[in-house]
């Protein structure tokens, strides 16, 4: 019983948003920064506010009936304080700025973390709540302060994903009124493709075992303990003088692991998304092994590289594929 009702309400809400944009005031996407002002802050009483209203009416009726002026004065005072709290609720949102949204990287299917940068302006902000994608977080910022609030967003598929509408609301100070404003930032986050779970390694261009031998590099790699047979000229005399044992300059270095040339054209048998998933897995493996890689895509050719920046560049290129 519960689910159909909730579903009905959600659908009604959805239809109202579509049919009556002027009434529901869900705004069009807009560019950051967004500063809240009087034209976009709305206020309604909360459930507690309505209950308090009934309580005030009962108190008013009682005071008038018993001709008790002191009680009437108290009722008026409480009522006026409640009304004033509405203005405070408005002021707690007015002037608040969403300066920027910074999106982390995420793989499709995993939550994407958004960092919302808020700017308090000249007022203290307390008990402001951010509602996005079914999750709510509360925060407070001192006046002239900034705050970065991480919020996660669910992702389903790779590619550009528009940010959802964000609701900022507050029932500060007494919880009797709820002031809210919708933020619809015109911004998208790039979601990386989900790598396949298993499959063959990439074909290497030249699988030559000779490439795996060690070679003498030019640069000093490390100092190590003397082993019998080490040439005398390699002994690091100065460093050895500070230690008990002899130290030897080690120029030997394993040759960097062979690079992977990942190519879109290597997998003609796979369909579009499966190729992307496989390339994503290979990129992930290359990154995990510290192996340099290059990536050739129909519209983009990324040269050799390694490290997180290279990985991110390749994954983003994959994500942007049509």
């Amino acid at each position, binding site marked *: 019983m*519960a689910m159909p*009702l*909730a579903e009905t*309400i959600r659908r009604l809400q959805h239809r109202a948003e579509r049919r009556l944009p002027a009434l529901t005031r869900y705004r069009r996407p807009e*560019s*950051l*920064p967004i500063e809240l002002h*009087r034209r976009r802050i709305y206020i309604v009483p909360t459930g*507690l506010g309505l*209950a*308090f209203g009934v*309580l005030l009416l*009962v*108190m*008013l*009726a*009682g*005071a*008038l*009936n*018993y*001709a*008790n*002026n*002191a*009680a*009437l*004065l*108290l*009722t*008026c*005072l*409480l*009522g*006026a*304080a409640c*009304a*004033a*709290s509405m*203005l*405070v609720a*408005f*002021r707690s949102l*007015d*002037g608040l700025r969403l300066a920027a949204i910074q999106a982390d990287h995420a793989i499709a299917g995993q939550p994407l973390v958004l960092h919302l940068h808020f700017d308090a302006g*000249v007022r*203290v902000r*307390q*008990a402001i*709540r951010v509602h996005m994608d079914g999750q709510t977080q*509360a*925060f*407070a910022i*001192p006046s002239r302060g900034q705050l970065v609030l991480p919020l996660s967003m669910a992702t389903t598929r790779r590619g550009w994903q528009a940010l959802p509408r964000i609701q900022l609301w507050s*029932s*500060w*100070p*007494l*919880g*009797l009124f709820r002031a809210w404003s919708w933020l619809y930032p015109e911004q998208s986050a790039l979601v990386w493709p989900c790598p396949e779970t298993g499959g063959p390694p990439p074909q290497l261009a030249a699988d030559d075992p000779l490439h795996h031998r060690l070679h003498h590099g030019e640069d000093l790699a490390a100092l190590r303990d003397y082993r019998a047979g080490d040439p005398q000229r390699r002994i690091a005399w100065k460093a050895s003088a500070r230690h008990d044992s002899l130290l030897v300059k080690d120029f030997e270095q394993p040759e960097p692991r062979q690079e992977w040339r990942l190519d879109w054209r290597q997998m003609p048998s796979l369909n579009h998304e499966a190729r992307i998933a496989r390339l994503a897995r290979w990129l992930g493996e290359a990154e995990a092994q510290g192996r340099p890689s290059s990536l050739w895509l129909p519209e983009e050719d990324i040269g050799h590289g390694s490290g997180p920046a290279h990985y991110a560049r390749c994954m983003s290129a994959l994500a942007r594929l049509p």
Partner: protein
Amino acid sequence: MIRLRRTSRNEAPLDGRAFDLLCITTAVVLGLHASHLPLWLSAALAAVLGLRWWQRRRQPGRAPIYLKLPLVALLAATVIFHYGNIFGREPGSALAVGLLVLKLLETETPRDAKVAVGFACFTLMAALLSDQGMVATFIVGLGLVPALATLRALQPARVATSLPRELLPGLSLLAAAVPLSLLGFVLVPRLDSPLWGAPPSAQARTGLSDRMSPGDFVDLLTDDHPAMRVSFDQTLPAPDQRYFRAYVMTHYDGRRWTTMPTGQPPAPLEATESQSYRITLEPNGQQVLPALDVPLEAPPQARLGANREVIGGKPVQDPLTYSLRSALHYRFQPALDDATRRRSLLLPAGFNPRSLALAAQWRERYGDRDDAIVQAALSLFHDGGFNYTLAPAPLGRDAVDDFLFATHEGFCEHYSSAFTVLMRAAGVPARVVTGYQGGYWNKLGQYLLVRQSDAHAWSEVWLAGRGWVRVDPTAAVRPERVSLGAAAVAASQSGWQGLNWLQDLRNRWDVVNRWWSEGVIGFDALRQRGLLTPFGVRDTDTTTLSVLLTIGSVLFAALGLAWALWRRHDADPMRAAMQTLERKLARAGIARRSSEGPQHYLLRAARALPAQRAELDLLMRSYLDLRYAYAVPPPESVRGFTQAVRDFRPRHVVK
């Protein structure tokens, strides 16, 4: 909706600060009700509150149901046992306070706390049903502060502060609400008649009653609470004329004097001099309204009894103000009818033989000179070794005999009772009158403050040709009682002289109480109608009041909105100046894009306004200079830039 409710059911537990504030709120409510709750009930509730607070600090958790239910049942049973029923102001507020304290036993979530706060506000109002005094109202108003602080503490993500600082915002919110609440108070239309029956309050202070036996007044004469306040239209009557009649008692059963309603029309009165005045009577639960001496006519809501006592329509439960006109020099009922004469001479058989013998002796000596008999009785009191005291020896069956011939001590009740019995025994029609005598003249407020301790009893005798004449036998014993008032007599007796200044201070302070009682508590439907009389509107009806209330509320709303929309200007003068410049340029059609830095923006502006290229270029360079060349820019340069921005007028290019 469903989801919302489900989440609220298992919402986070209440945090400690909010619970502490809720406990403070409840303690304040309990404290405000303590004055009329039985002491043991207040103590028990305070103990429950303290235990609950201590328990939740150690380990949060609801009290189990097997503890809550018996406690609620016990509370209800206690209230019924003590008050007799569960309805009415007294038992109702006792029950409400008890339930509020018990509510805390199961307060674990914000939702519970919200319910408790709402209930606490209601219970605070109930505290005003028993005491509407100014100080009480003020304190109850302050009682809202912890309630508001509790609501505030229920909000998530607050800037942490100390407990006393949590209370401050609530206080300032209330202070900001005062003007609007005063507007509402003045303009909310009052009801002419109650919507439902108001249960009588048992709290009304006991005043005079319609019966009197010697010794009854002792509680009253030591009660310092105001009984009424009188303001006179003309001059203040002399102290020995300040007799306020309330009850006229004709019937005597040997021990006690009682009134005897006869249903006859008011006795005729020939007045030569009259005085008009206004009385504000404190609630006393009695129907009779005291009046100065003999009133000429009754106020609108009351009638005159046969002996010209003023009888109101219903017992006085709330402060009542009425205007009257009274005679100070008069002949009251010059012709006495037989029935009244008979009633005024009646004495129960078999009481006070020695007094009867003394009266018969006087009658023999003075013949038919009634006034000489009165004088004889007064000189007996004056010279017979009588003593004025509030703690007289007890009297036996023949009370008047015992008083006159044995104890020789007593206060006004004893003297008036004995005097009246003597007069009746001698054949002079006489009766006992109770009321108030004296009072404190408050110069600042120009009114006479009469306290319960000014209660007094005297006699009226009927003399041929003069009618009923007031005789105060107490004055024969203790003239200060009449000339200086009850307080002076009491002070001289109990050695309270040192505290006279305190008494005086209290009397002076009463002007504030009177203002409160008349201006605020007494602001009823009638006074509200006359609200606009100074502006030429004689009768302000409900419609006018509603319109005024609406207009006033709109005005306040506008004020509030102005405050809400007002934004403090940026404290950084450079940014403020830049914003001014942006506004000016935007009006000329060059609005700054959010992606534009100052340099790009001003360059674009210079291109768009070629006539002012040099000016804009200078502005741009000095802005960049001031912004980036210094850690702290020199103030005179900042001022120069601000001035340049102020002088800048974008000129539209004529195309």
